[in-house]
């Protein structure tokens, strides 16, 4: 199963920007939380997850062809 993973702000350093998203092959279904952990993205770096333009959380299990965008935390004013 293949998915595309892109990130904004500081997350670009981990997965590339959305326009140049990283394609990832998943041998088995797993949650986004597990995927991000395996990629070494620290806890707390992802505040918002958009999957095919719909908001999801870290428990979401990606499906074939998903385009996932990761957004870091906002600065609070």
């Amino acid at each position, binding site marked *: 199963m293949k998915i595309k993973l892109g990130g*904004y702000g500081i997350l670009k350093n981990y997965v590339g920007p959305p326009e140049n998203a990283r394609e990832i092959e998943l041998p088995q279904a797993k949650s986004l939380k597990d995927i991000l952990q395996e990629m070494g993205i*620290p806890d707390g*770096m992802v505040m918002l997850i958009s999957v095919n333009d719909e*908001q999801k959380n870290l428990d979401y299990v990606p499906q074939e062809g998903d385009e996932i*965008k990761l957004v870091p935390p*906002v*600065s*609070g004013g």
Partner: protein
Amino acid sequence: MFAYGGKVLRINLSTGQITVKNLDEKLVRDYLGGRGFAARILYDELKPGLDPLGPDNKIVVASGPLSGLFVPGAGKITFAAKSPATNSYGDSNMGGMLAAEIKYAGYDVLIIEGKANRPSYIYINNDRVEIREAGQYWGQGAITTEKMLKDDLGDQFQMAVIGPAGENLIKFACISHDFGRQAGRTGIGAVMGSKNLKAIALRGSKSLKIANPKLLKTLTGDIITQCQKHPALKLWLNQGTASVTVWSNEQGSFPTRNFQSGYFEGYKNISGDVMLKETIVTNKACFGCPMACGKYARTKKNNRTYYVEGPEYETAAMIGGDCAIGNITDLTYANWLCDELGIDTISGGSVVAFAMECYEKGIITDKDTDGIKLKFGDIESFEKILRKIAYREGIGAILAEGVKIASEKFGQGSDKFAMQVKGLEISGYESRKAPAMMLAYMTCDIGAHHNRAWAITHDIAVGRDKIEGKAQRVIELQHIRPVFDMIGCCRLQWVELDLSLEYYPQALAAATGLNYSLDDLLKCSERVWNLSRLFLIRESKNFGRHVDYPPARFYEEKVKNGPTRDSIAKKQDIDKLLDEYYRLRGWDENGKPTPAKLKELGLL
């Protein structure tokens, strides 16, 4: 001069003299606008050692070259003066409509000098400038005053007003505008009060000349497209900055009970989601902004309905967490109270939290508080003490000085938990396990404020215990973020919607015809940073690296609970951070800019 109003309006409230001069081209070249103009003018014109609340202090109100243009976010204006909170350079940045209005009136900068002999307000309608009597507004709340002025002068006027806190010289009094936007930090509202100046009412109907309107229009279109396709835009439209409350608690960085903890057990009751369900009435945007992060809210308290913009994240942190006000009705009401009294919610929350802890520890008692039983989480005692502060009644007169001076008066070791740096209360991030964020607070030029370098995500990304490399990132942010305050633009499109920084020099060139690279802009920002440091050195009786130290709580007490429980900063790490920071800045071991650095920046 393209995009600039081209004029400096100077008003002397003592003599009534009003003068208009052309904007100096060298000032434009080296300092761009906004905070850059303010720092240079105040450094040059203020006599060292003057009383910030005396007639010799001056208030500079400065827009930027992009203010009022059709670039998204170009609605920012700077209010600056010698700060009564820090006794050094102070500024605060405000959104809303005022930045555009001052430009349309033909001015980039307003300099207010002297002291009126009675309550007054400044009336500016393009070229018509008057100092008018404000007796009918004096004593009124800030929200009420703005409404009265709108009724009297017309909706097309934009106002900057103070509430009772400003009139009574509370050192964390803010300036309010547009029923919910504030120049909140460093007590510039008290400087207005010290001048008997209740308000500034502005109306402008002139146009601005743009160097390359076609290019600016194209760039603006690109910027809007970029912003609209970002998935976080919806979050901003829904919740604004309040969307960070949940995340901040999950990271253990939410100041709670006067920074005893970084996790507030009631945070889910004051989150952006709860606001969305219970209090938000509509979105509110600053001039030309597609993000509309302002959330206009309604709450009922004691059979009365209150309308207020907020609470923003910082208010949720400093009143919600730090004073433990754990439900959205009380928090929204507390926000309204601060706005109407004209108190900065960040410092106001911190001061009340400090008083609550002093009471809890027996450092102050019923005798001191006139019977008010100060208790974390209690909105009634919060309100009573806040009103005492705003009117300088009883213990309120001591607390009105801010936590630094109040702790010196209360003694008994309370200075260790007076959460401030340089006299300014720390804003909404617990930082014992976030060295970059702590260093950002320690070294911020106006005192402990987050907006110069919001570095906590860097801590999380590279390791929260790591010290190495943190100073470098803090300095980068301290140069990038104030550029926005100089060009008169909001930074949120960049920091939250990932807009490329490269858009800004392009927009600046299209608007003004001035060709600056991004590096040139950052150099201007570094110049201002060093200039404000020189201001601090000039005003300090005993300058040294101690001025950059955090409160002892950060390195003597562990975080009490939550995800960062038992965290503590090590003193040797604090020194290591400072050593690295000074070295990278080209400052000596005591934090003074070296002659070589000043020469490089054209300051020597």
